[in-house]
């Protein structure tokens, strides 16, 4: 064997090793969460709110956190969608000045890089300024800030990939830019847009640092936007902090529930985009 071939073999071995290390760490994480979480998980956990003495290990469940997280992430995703869709469509159909689109994208990339704890701290100052208390509304606003760049850039990346011919075909028929955006771009790029929305939802539901300041925590399911709300990541965090093993086990169960939600969202977005892709022109 030649030296170059031996070197090739060794390097390739290291590559395979590295790649399996990456895959194994994913497996390690999932297995850890399942092994720790599954024994502690039962139906009561999923359908009850905490009862008296829950944090000492007594009866109850984490329904407050599950519903709270869905409220928070759902609300934030809707709010972010209201702004991100126009931005993404504008960048594709309206923006004739390339430099402006570039700056918008750059600002979104920078926003995307801001740590969620900084969003949380900012949300806190915002709420002080507005006189808000920790509440569902506060959590939704801050999560929406966090999701906005993720969703917009996700949509932008897919919308940009639309062939210019298709857009021009619409213009050739006399469509305005708005009509082109709504009837052609939106429809053609729907699968990618849905994927971006679900991606942002997944990020929102999993984020703890930003809701720590702004959403508070409560054992009840909120009935108003101005009430505090529990969330799954914080349920994990707080319950792990207690000295009682029963409560810690519930933290593992909550982590499992959160992971399952993330998995469902991620698989769901793949399935949806594959299904909806049938109606678009390849």
């Amino acid at each position, binding site marked *: 064997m*030649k*030296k*170059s*071939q031996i070197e090739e073999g060794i390097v390739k071995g290291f590559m395979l090793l590295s790649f399996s290390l990456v895959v194994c760490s994913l497996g390690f994480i999932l297995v850890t969460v399942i092994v720790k979480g599954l024994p502690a998980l039962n139906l009561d956990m999923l359908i009850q709110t905490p009862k008296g003495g829950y944090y000492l290990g007594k009866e109850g469940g984490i329904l407050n956190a599950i519903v709270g997280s869905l409220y928070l992430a759902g609300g934030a995703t809707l709010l972010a969608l209201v702004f991100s869709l126009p931005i993404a469509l504008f960048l594709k159909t309206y923006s004739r000045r390339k430099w402006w689109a570039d700056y918008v994208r750059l600002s979104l990339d920078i926003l995307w890089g801001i740590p969620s704890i900084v969003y949380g701290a900012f949300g806190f100052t915002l709420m002080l300024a507005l006189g808000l208390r920790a509440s569902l509304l506060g959590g939704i606003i801050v999560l929406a800030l966090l999701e906005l760049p993720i969703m917009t850039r996700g949509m932008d990346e897919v919308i940009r990939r639309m062939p210019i011919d298709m857009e021009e075909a619409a213009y050739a028929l006399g469509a305005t830019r708005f009509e082109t955006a709504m009837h052609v771009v939106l429809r053609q790029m729907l699968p990618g847009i849905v994927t971006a929305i679900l991606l942002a939802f997944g990020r929102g539901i999993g984020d703890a640092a930003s809701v720590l300041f702004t959403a508070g925590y409560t054992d009840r399911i909120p009935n108003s936007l101005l009430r505090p709300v529990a969330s799954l990541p914080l349920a994990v965090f707080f319950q792990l902090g207690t000295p009682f093993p029963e409560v810690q086990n519930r933290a593992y169960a909550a982590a499992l529930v959160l992971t399952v939600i993330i998995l469902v969202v991620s698989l769901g977005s793949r399935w949806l985009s594959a299904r909806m892709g049938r109606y678009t022109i390849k």
Partner: protein
Amino acid sequence: MEPHIQVRDLNVYYEKIHALKDIDLEIPRHQITVIMGPSGCGKTTLLKSLNRFLELNESTRMSGNILIDGEDIYALGVDVTEVRKKAGLLAQHPFPLPMSIYDNVAYGLRIHGMCPNGRSVDAKVQHYLLEAGLWEEVKDRLHFPATGLSVGQQQRLCLARGLAIEPEILLGDEPTSALDPISAQHIENRLMDLKNEYTIILVTHILRQAKRLADYVVFMYLGKVIESGLPGEIFDNPQEERTLAYLEGQF
């Protein structure tokens, strides 16, 4: 004279497309063999099978044998890098490596360990740049990036780079198609000079170029070799209807 390259019963499939069908071919030594035919006829695929480039594509399957000097280059245990060292390639577009002009030529020498001491590298770089007709133009800027050259110069650099590893065969995949007429003529003249030492196989769709350069002609159509022979026979007196049609410009 014994043929340099023998292709026996070669079949190549991309996925389900049957790209080459039952190719049997003998390519003479130290002559320019021109493979011609309309686009999509499998010329490039045939060329790629000669330096084992086909296997870079996952979905390719092949059967049959290719023998260089009587040895099967697809046999088990054959070192693919040795095959490629034996058959240099001049691609359609010049792709200079991202290094200096000097290093482009020295690259092959280094990876094959062909120059144990530094001084002979200098000499060889000069020799092959001369052989490719590029020396005069670049001798003052050998250590500048190769990307600064014009496309025509880059193609000659690629030729020098290919010659430096001392191949026996030169494969040209429409090497002049991306060049201006003057650079193209430069390359053609080089090839004419080189044919005494190398077996040259040239893929082209330019009929005039084929007529100018060919010592031996292969005409392909839809993955098959329709006709092969000396240029005099093929160009003036084709036996096959399809060859005639092609020569008359019907494809």
